């Protein structure tokens, strides 16, 4: 077959546009479409949510009420109010606690996998961490609802176990695998010559890790944490199930809260299309989009700066 084709192509006119030429063009075109599809999609999504949300921003939005008031009462029969302070406080507290849970876990795991584990153990651990990342968020939410909830009630003697602590732990466990994988990559990117030089000067294993490897991989580690924050911030299903959905600025880790994402998920289905409520939910969408965009962009820039060094 192959020799036949070679003979063919040598025997024909070089200018001739045969099947291969068309195949080549078609594949080039397909790859191009695939390549720019991310850009097209992200612009499309942004245009869509802005189109729906801008009507609210331009029309009924009272900025001071929106960011300064706790009262999210979009369906009030007397006076609908759209204060998202409670939703922001909920999202921030849950994401914050999630980072407290996941940063030590994932950095520890990354250091162990990258610096200590070898051979079979290392490969097994890597596969398991990636498997952990594949658990669907609704399953995590279910664990929060039916396993952590009674556990928190029993241990701490609080009335309800759905809240900041519950969803913080769940989100922390959800974000940890991604953070571990990226942090481990960052440690791997530190050249072995650094470690060898440190060891040659008589540093112990711990000294090598804390004084040489971690500082050298700092940017990658920061990016890992930022992506974890982005994951926690945007997570919806698990938060919807484990926070208790209560509009409140938490004063203790056992308080029930609600999140921006969960509010959209719970209310959009029933909000009449085109109403202020519907548009206000899209405005929340814009806010989420912008914040996650900034977080991911920052992470990306940090990684790039690390790469340039």
């Amino acid at each position: 077959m192959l020799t036949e084709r070679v003979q063919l192509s040598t025997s024909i006119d070089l200018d001739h546009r045969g099947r291969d030429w068309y195949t080549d063009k078609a594949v080039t075109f397909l790859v191009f479409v695939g390549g720019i599809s991310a850009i097209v999609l992200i612009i499309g999504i942004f245009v869509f949510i802005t189109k729906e949300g801008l009507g609210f921003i331009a029309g009924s939005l009272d900025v001071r009420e929106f960011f300064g008031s706790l009262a999210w009462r979009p369906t009030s029969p007397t006076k609908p109010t759209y204060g998202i302070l409670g939703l922001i406080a909920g999202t921030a507290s849950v994401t914050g606690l999630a980072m407290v849970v996941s940063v030590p876990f994932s950095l520890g795991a990354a250091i162990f996998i990258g610096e200590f584990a070898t051979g079979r153990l290392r490969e097994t651990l890597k596969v398991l961490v990636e498997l952990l990342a594949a658990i669907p968020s609704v399953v995590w939410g279910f664990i929060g609802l039916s396993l952590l909830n009674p556990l928190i009630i029993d241990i701490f003697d609080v009335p309800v176990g759905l809240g900041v602590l519950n969803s913080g732990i769940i989100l922390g466990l959800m974000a940890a695998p991604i953070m571990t994988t990226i942090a481990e990559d960052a440690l791997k990117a530190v050249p072995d010559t650094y470690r060898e030089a440190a060891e040659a000067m008589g540093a112990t294993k711990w000294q090598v890790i804390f004084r040489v490897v971690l500082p050298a991989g700092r940017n990658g580690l920061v990016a890992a944490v930022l992506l974890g924050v982005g994951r926690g911030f945007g997570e919806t299903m698990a938060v919807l199930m484990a926070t208790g959905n209560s509009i409140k600025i938490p004063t203790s880790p056992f308080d029930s809260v609600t999140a921006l994402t969960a509010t959209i998920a719970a209310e959009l289905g029933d909000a009449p299309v085109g109403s202020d409520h519907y548009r206000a939910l899209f405005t929340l969408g814009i806010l989420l989009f912008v914040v996650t965009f900034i977080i991911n962009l920052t992470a990306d820039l940090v990684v790039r700066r690390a790469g340039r060094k």
Partner: protein
Amino acid sequence: MSRTLRVLPFLLVSVACGGCDGSSGAGRDIIQNKGSDTLVFVALSWAERYGEINPSVAVAVSGGGSGTGISALVNGTADIANSSRKMRNREIEGAQSRGIEPIEYVVGFDALAVFLHPDNPIEALSITQLAEIYAEGGSHETWSQLGVSVPGCSSDEIVRVSRQNNSGTYAYFQDAVLGQADYKLGSLHMNGSSEVVDLVANTPCAIGYSGLAYATEEVEMPCISTDGGDCVSPSVESAIDGRYPIARPLFMYTAGEPTGMIKEYMDWILGEAGQCILVDKGFAPAGSVSCA
């Protein structure tokens, strides 16, 4: 758990033929029936039974909430909307502007029960007390203010369990109990009636409300009194004779005066066969019927 997935409210049931639509395919006509989560289980039973009686018609039922059903009726994607609240004036105007005149049917009544943990000693509550507990500015925050101490609730705090703010149940409770006042912030918003019952059953400090049909043996239901009135326990009987103070009508809406198979289906629902299925599911019938 599936009820939490309200963004994807596709609970297509009772359509025996897989991909056929409209009058094509296997020759079954399809009625699209959509709306209230309170009514969804009754609507499913109706659809199932009607399919046995009249095999040429298939009724596709989906939930999603009263608002979803009404907008589907207005958009023409549903033939019949189920609703646990009356259509709002705004919604009626919206429908009329699209040339649709919604026709309202009261298909039954639902007693709205208040749920307490079985360890809670309270046996009677008044509408005023409920408003003090749930409404913005209300004074009741702890169980001791109601004169009881609840075993297992060491914090004494009243944990208010409510529904998400676009539910028909939430709107009715706000109307009938809070007198249209806003809810206190910080209530726990559950995405379904059964979630409310589950949470109250597991939480000694909690109080919740939902349709009587969702009650289980794991929760206690206090009797409810209006000011100066008798205290009446929620039941199908007390909802029928109007003694129970917080019973609400359940609605179905059609786009314009129904004809053909939709009219036949509505007549069947309002007839004895349909009404007895409703009673069987724990609701009160729209008129008097005698069921076996």
